[in-house]
């Protein structure tokens, strides 16, 4: 079981829940699992080409998956996934 933390703008798909549990051997499977249970949730997380949306950052245990295995990043029991919009600073 993996805990998935959601940004405010995606919580409309989960009835307001800020975090949900999901299953999957990889991040891609996990997102597919989530989409099956909460239709529309991953629509803006994935781009049209099936990759990660450019303006979305997904972290596994606080590390950005773009520098791990992206959508093929392996999931382990107890992992925490965070989905956040990209923000700038400065």
């Amino acid at each position: 079981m993996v805990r998935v933390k959601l940004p405010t703008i995606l919580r409309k798909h989960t009835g307001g829940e800020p975090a949900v549990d999901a299953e999957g051997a990889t991040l891609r499977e996990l997102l597919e699992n989530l989409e099956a249970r909460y239709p529309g949730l991953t629509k803006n997380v994935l781009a049209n080409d099936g990759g990660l949306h450019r303006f979305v950052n997904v972290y596994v245990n606080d590390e950005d998956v773009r520098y791990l295995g992206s959508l093929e990043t392996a999931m382990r029991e107890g992992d925490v996934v965070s989905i956040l919009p990209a923000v700038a600073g400065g």
Partner: protein
Amino acid sequence: MRYDDILQAIGNTPLVGMPSMSPRAPVRLWAKLEGQNPTGSVKDRIALAMIESAEASGDLTPDKTILEPTSGNTGIALAMVAKRKGYRLTVVIPDNASHERVQLLELFGAEIVYSPGDKGTNGSIEVARAMAKDPKYHMPFQYGNLANVLAHYEGTGAEIVRDLPQVTHFIAGLGTGGTLTGTGRRLHEHDPRVRVIAAEPELGDLVYGLRSLDDGFIPPIFDETVLDRKFLVSSSDALRVTRELTSREGIFSGISSGAVVYVAQRIATEIDEGDIVCLLADGGWKYLSTEAWAPEIDRAEKGVSESLWW
């Protein structure tokens, strides 16, 4: 050191050891103290570089007003450089930027336009882009200005190579991407094995209240390929390490510096030995009103979580 004017005192910041912050002795942590710049942040470097490159290209002339979206530090640095050079400046900042940032902008004579705090710096960018259509403005736009990257390539990166040739890791906050891209490229030229790592803030729901994920923003100058890893740091972890920097090292830094050193400590547990350079972007002065150093940790956490510390 003796300089002809304040602008020459920008850069060449100290690199100091942090012996009490490393979880294991063979891994040495170093702090690049950007708070030692004239206005107290790393942004003095890019403010000077962006204005002087616009002067050289002819884009910035004395009749123009400089316009910039910023969460604070870049605005303050631009305000100082603009004052010294005789330009007017308008900054667009989120309305939840810390009180001290607004005070500093005002004392350097900047005109301030507020953008909605719940849209963070992305909101300031939106407002400034609309204003910049008026030709009276010159917008350096730190997120898209290559002078930002170059200031770090020629300054920050070169200084680290000079002061610590054995550097193995470089860690900095990801704001515009300029620090990581410019410094990272210079360090990779010096030694391709240097790992370049980003720390990102977990800013809380207030700042992530964007309307849709499409409103996210990736700065055009940020070269994602320069990075090896990127970590999200919560405001409570950033705050805890910021307070430890003060109590254990005597280093009084801003909250983003705590996030950077937090990531350095995580990396340090994964390697046997190394020299990790942490870029401490600013000093703690501008965050006193957030109560980050309040004796009660609960009060400090509440204050920091409600403010924009990136």
